[in-house]
């Protein structure tokens, strides 16, 4: 079942590529159908209810390169299930958003889109570090093509920058991974890349620090955290709408996922020492990203920097490592995925119509395109953390949890709540409110775009008003990751993630 999730996308991608000869619409429909089929494969996991004990809803393990202990090991638990749903959902949105924007090499576009998604799904499911690395690389290459071939005016620069950043950081991860495997081999006598086996590795503190840093940097580049964020504004801005949706909505989440699945569980002792630094980086990202977002006049760049700010909350929450903060992280990942995807679709729609992203040339668009403006307002308001909409739940829980770990740091992070409206509302002001600076005779959202936005709006309200439905799904993962590590591979108590402060301390 899990392998099928990835396989369907890969095959669908090939089909879409080949189907171009039957007209430009064929790849679009094939991509859409592929994603729907993929989504349908997930239904059984929701139908079955969620186990109280034992995290893994499903797993599959096949031998691959036995000599080095590499296996094709996929597993699905609550948090990966939510992220997989997000990936497929936003994949659908990306296809819908590209429907009229992409007119050249339509087949190859959808091939790349689906293969990126396949790579992302692999990242969310892999439980073998080598396999994880393979998927990590698979998702980068097609994304490079998406930016380089269908991007905007400065696409070559952005694509190469994106590629280099992720490649160099991926190399660090590979190095750290290999060293970890070798150390494990010295202790245990066998080569293995398996996640559960490697969790048992005992490391000297000094070595652990370096290995942890290798993983941390790789994932923080992707997240992105300050100061490794500078690839993001270029990549997001230059990518076609569908690419931006996938980048912001899904690909950034792989960084967060890596941190929560690998870095913290693998190196619990070091993480305890490191967490003030990581949380500090998170706070820096919140404030610095927010300030940069405010300074931009390019609409997509503004949204891109706002992602840096929002992902800062993720970093803070992850390294606070308690139930509240982690649930907040999961919700933030989902909510930010949706709201930033929506804002990129919106920016893409504006650009498709008036051929500029420069907000100095917009203004007063509300009068011409009230639907676009109202939807833009909705998602800006969601992004600034309005209670009742998704992003608030995530950020609130993160801060609520982080406060118990580090009150001062949390107070600093909360300043982000002041900066968020500063940049979100300036977007509304410059694009939709104010005087009309140039006359644009443009059409408002049509049925396809309204439907697309409708889904995103419903999702945002749902997360905001009834987050419990998602919290319940990730809860099983959470209980186990805070306690030990899964059934049958339960860790000895002394190697629990950093000390007592990692456990939810409950009532005072």
């Amino acid at each position: 079942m899990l392998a099928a999730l990835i396989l369907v996308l890969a095959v669908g991608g090939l089909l879409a590529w080949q189907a171009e000869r039957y007209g430009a619409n064929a790849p679009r429909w094939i991509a859409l159908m592929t994603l729907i089929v993929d989504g349908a494969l997930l239904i059984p996991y929701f139908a079955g209810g969620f186990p109280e004990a034992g995290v893994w809803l499903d797993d599959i393990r096949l031998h691959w390169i036995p000599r080095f202990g590499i296996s094709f090991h996929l597993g699905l638990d609550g948090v990966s299930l939510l992220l997989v749903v997000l990936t497929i959902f936003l994949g659908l949105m990306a296809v819908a958003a590209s429907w009229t924007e992409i007119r050249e090499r339509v087949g190859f576009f959808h091939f790349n889109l689906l293969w990126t998604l396949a790579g992302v799904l692999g990242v969310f499911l892999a439980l073998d570090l080598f396999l994880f690395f393979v998927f990590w690389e698979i998702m980068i290459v097609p994304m490079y093509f998406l930016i380089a071939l269908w991007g905007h005016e400065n696409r070559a620069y952005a694509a190469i920058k994106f590629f280099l950043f992720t490649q160099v950081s991926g190399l660090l991860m590979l190095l750290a991974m290999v060293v970890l495997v070798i150390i494990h081999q010295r202790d245990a006598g066998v080569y293995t890349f398996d996640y559960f086996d490697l969790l048992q590795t005992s490391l000297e503190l000094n070595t652990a620090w370096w290995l942890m840093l290798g993983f941390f940097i790789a994932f923080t580049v992707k997240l992105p955290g300050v100061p490794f964020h500078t690839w993001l504004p270029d990549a997001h801005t230059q990518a076609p709408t569908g690419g931006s949706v996938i980048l912001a909505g899904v690909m950034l989440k792989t960084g967060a996922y890596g941190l929560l699945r690998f870095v913290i569980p693998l190196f619990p002792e070091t993480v305890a020492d490191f967490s003030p630094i990581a949380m500090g980086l998170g706070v820096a990202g919140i404030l610095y990203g927010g300030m940069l977002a405010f300074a931009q006049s390019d609409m997509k760049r503004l949204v891109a920097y706002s992602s840096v700010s929002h992902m800062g909350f993720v970093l803070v929450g992850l390294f606070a490592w308690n139930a509240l903060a982690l649930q907040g992280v999961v919700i933030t990942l989902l909510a930010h995925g949706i709201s930033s995807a929506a804002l990129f679709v919106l920016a893409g729609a504006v650009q498709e119509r008036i051929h500029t992203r420069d907000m100095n040339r917009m203004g007063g668009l509300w009068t011409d395109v009230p639907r676009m403006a109202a939807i833009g307002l909705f998602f800006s308001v969601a992004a600034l953390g309005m209670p009742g909409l998704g992003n608030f739940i995530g950020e609130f829980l993160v801060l609520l949890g982080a406060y118990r770990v580090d009150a001062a740091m949390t107070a600093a992070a909360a300043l982000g709540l002041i900066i968020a409206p500063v940049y979100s509302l300036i977007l509304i002001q410059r694009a939709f409110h104010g005087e009309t600076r140039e006359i644009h005779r443009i059409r408002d959202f049509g049925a396809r775009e309204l439907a697309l936005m409708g889904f995103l709006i419903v999702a945002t309200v749902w997360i905001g008003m009834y987050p419990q439905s998602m919290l319940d799904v990730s809860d099983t993962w959470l209980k186990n990751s805070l306690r030990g590590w899964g059934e049958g591979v339960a860790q000895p108590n002394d190697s629990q993630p950093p000390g007592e402060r990692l456990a939810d301390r409950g009532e005072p």
Partner: protein
Amino acid sequence: MLNYLGLIPLFPLIGFLILVASQGNMPRRWVPWIGAGSVGLSAVLAALVGIEFLSGSLEPYRQTLWTWMRVGHFASGFSLYLDALSLNMMFVVTGVGFLIHVYSVGFMADDAGYARFFAYMNLFVFAMLVLVLADNLVLLYLGWEGVGLCSYLLIGFWYENPENGAAARKAFVMTRVGDTAMAIGLFLLFARLGTLDIQALLNRASAAWPVGSGMAALAALLLLGGAVGKSAQLPLQTWLPDAMAGPTPISALIHAATMVTAGVYLIARTHTLFELAPAVLQLVAAVGAVTLLIAGFTALTQRDIKRILAYSTISQIGYMFLALGVTAFSSAIFHLTTHAYFKALLFLAAGAVIHSYHHEHDIFRMGGLRKRLPIAFWSFVIGSAALTALPFTSGYFSKHEILASAFHAENGFWFWAAGTLGALLTGIYSFRLVFIAFFGPENERASEHLGFAMSVPLILLGALALLGGFVSMPLGSVFPRSEPGELGLIAGIFTDLAPLVGVGIAVLLYLLRTYPVEALTETRWGDMLHRFWFSGWGFDWLYGKLLVNPFRWLAAVNSSDIADDIYRGIAAASQYAHRAFAATQTGQLRWYVAAFTGGTVLAIALGILS
């Protein structure tokens, strides 16, 4: 009946959704039926619920709609809580809110954004009802931010003018500053007490913290941060005058009667916590006292009819804070209620003037409107009388209670003196407005066409402003019983005379002009003082210099992201190296031979030397 409580906020929400879904395509004549009708339904239901509640034992009533979020020990539900305090607020929000909606049907009739206006208004009423009915602080925070959003949307309702947008953003961001303090307060309360359900939290706070404990003070202080932001008190008061950029019914509903008093409600709601921190209570009273004076002096100098009323609102909320600070909680809520009547009346009357007199805001360009705008005039007279607390108007009762309570509190003399001086100022600035705008030679250019929709709310609010002081909610079931105490002869005379003296001064300065005020403002010091007061005591200037400009400057100089320079540097360095090494590939044999020889010699030399 009580179990229909959840429907009261639901009606306006449905109204909002219908209006949004119609995307402005709804026939205009339907819009008021949805927009005002939904709030009307809420008001009727609130009245029915209220009657049942008041005829019962006054025991608080709880209704949980659904679990919002639950993580470990943290749980927050969509739960409503009804007691005399929230009932009082609910009456104000739905009752006064409904009258203002009806008024808006007439006031906004010609506006292109008719449906959008009512959509935002309905959303506001929904959020405000959630705020006052919330059983836990997270849900309260939802309402709290929701009303802030609607305030932003409605201040910037006429979005073509960038100034309105700036005012709207200023309001949102400044209140967000306070809200963030409040959010941190919530984090702290949860970390220490393990719950955010208001009643459980207050019980645990009393059990865990002794009176005067530092933690209670810190928590109360953080909540106070939220309250001063929302209620436009020192030091976060400067957004409210600018918020007058919105349509006038908004100023009446949001920036006078309901939202700006949310801070007062918050402190009253969590009064147990504040009572654990007497020092913070003193601060609350001091904030109120200083704010009411600063705003009162500022109101003396304004020319814009709505800005005068805005500063007066800040000043009157100062009284409410003063009352809270001296633990006269029910007096604070009483004043909140009467203030909602008379200030809504004043704003709506100001709207009637603006509506009838060519959208004019400057009182010095009015004058002589008394005969031409009779309804507006009498509304202003009644409203100003209640605002000034002339005997037997609604404002008289509530303000008198506050001053009497203040007199007996710790440091009470000073609070009482500030309040009494403020009452004098109120008399001057209220009737300054009335005399300048309405008296003098008859104005030919004005004509009053208010219609049914606009005049009926004015008349009803006028009646409430006059008589509302005779009814009050049994708030003793919520707050610790405190008798206001008697003022004694001398203080009593001062308290009762101060407003009258204020009116008398206004008569001399502005009506009879026995002592023309220009004689004062044209002196050197008078002029400086006048300009200082006119600017709202320079707060905008100060914040601009200290916060806004540095932030803008930093953002502007760093707009291309200094962190990227590192990577651009690496890229440039490798390109430079690339060019340098490429230059060695000349293709000329002698260069290669020379380099080869030189390298060999160097290698041998290194080998020998080491």
